[in-house]
């Protein structure tokens, strides 16, 4: 009697474990596949196009972006992304990379702000200048340790506001960023989720954007990632380079401090 019961339990145990094992090994195999894709990352094509664009004359002023100050001095691209977002005195506000690129395209190249912000997320039919520029600039911070400073009071304010937005429950589904990114070891379907409230999670999550998104065949930036998260949270649309996007980026980038930047990467 007991023997059969124990045997039945053991069988039941295995039967229950099998789908768990299958799901975990499927997730592991997918992770292996993603790592194998890193050789020959098409993001390099965006980096090359971005470098050309940085050096090319454009806009009504027919000027290049080579005098653009990303925070380390005019034209200094190497290591600049690892220190963004930061406060810029000329704009008197905190800016992430994309808002700073918009600023430079307006100030140096004479574009209107509307033109500089147009088509930020590309498609096969319409390539986005911004994605190429971001790929180039971020590539120049590869291997550099994240080093965002909260010295300036406006940076501290952006961080605090970003944190509040991260935990803001809203919309018909009551979702916040924290709903999916607030705990260790969770995943949606078979996609592992970084816990952005922990140092290790924030480091992993932040340092791998921008990335070539294989499923879209496009290079996607951090502004895109925030925009698409809010779409899936059932929120209205997050405006490109809006103050909320910069505040959230400040919160997450600072939390990632100390980790080596590892992008443009490749993702599913």
């Amino acid at each position, binding site marked *: 009697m007991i023997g059969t019961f124990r045997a039945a339990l053991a069988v039941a145990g295995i039967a229950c474990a099998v789908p768990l094992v299958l799901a975990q090994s499927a997730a592991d195999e997918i992770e292996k596949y993603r790592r194998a894709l890193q050789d*020959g990352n*098409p993001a390099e*094509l965006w980096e090359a*196009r971005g470098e050309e664009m940085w050096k090319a004359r454009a806009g009504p002023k027919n000027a290049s972006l080579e005098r653009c100050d990303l925070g380390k001095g005019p034209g200094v691209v190497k290591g600049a992304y690892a220190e963004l977002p930061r406060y810029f005195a000329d704009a008197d506000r905190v800016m992430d990379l994309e808002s700073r690129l918009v600023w430079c395209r307006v100030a140096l190249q004479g574009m209107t702000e509307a033109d500089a912000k147009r088509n930020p997320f590309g*498609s096969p039919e319409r390539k986005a200048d911004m994605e190429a520029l971001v790929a180039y600039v971020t590539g120049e911070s590869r291997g550099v340790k994240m080093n965002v400073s909260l010295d300036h009071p406006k940076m501290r304010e952006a961080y605090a506001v970003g944190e509040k937005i991260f935990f803001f429950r809203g919309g018909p589904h009551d979702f916040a960023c924290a709903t999916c990114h607030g705990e260790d070891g969770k995943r949606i379907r078979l996609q592992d989720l970084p816990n952005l409230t922990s140092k290790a999670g924030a480091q992993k999550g932040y340092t791998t954007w921008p990335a070539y998104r294989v499923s879209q065949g496009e290079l996607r930036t951090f502004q895109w990632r925030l925009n698409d998260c809010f779409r899936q949270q059932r929120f209205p649309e997050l405006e490109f380079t809006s103050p909320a996007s910069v505040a959230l980026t400040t919160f997450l980038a600072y939390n990632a401090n100390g980790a080596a930047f590892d992008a443009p990467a490749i993702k599913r």
Partner: protein
Amino acid sequence: MADPMKIRANVVGDSTEVKVLMNHEMETGQRKDAQGKTVPAWFIQNVTATWNGKTVLNAQWGPAVSKNPFLAFKFKGGAKGEKVQITWTDSKGDKRTDEATIA
């Protein structure tokens, strides 16, 4: 002419290892755009690699090859400083040739 390829060629033992990243939309002809219209097929049909005037690889591709294709292959021979050339032609008759120096 289309956007340039990224080519890396390295000596490995008595062979040369070549890695090529090509810039191409590789449309299958099955995809529909945002307006619901079918996007016409447009893909690389032929890839040729040459070294010292010799063809070391010839490939016929179809719409199953993905966007921004990555091609890696090895051939016997090759020395540092020599050149490897890659040429592709596509279904619209467009063509692209790029060259790399073996490292």
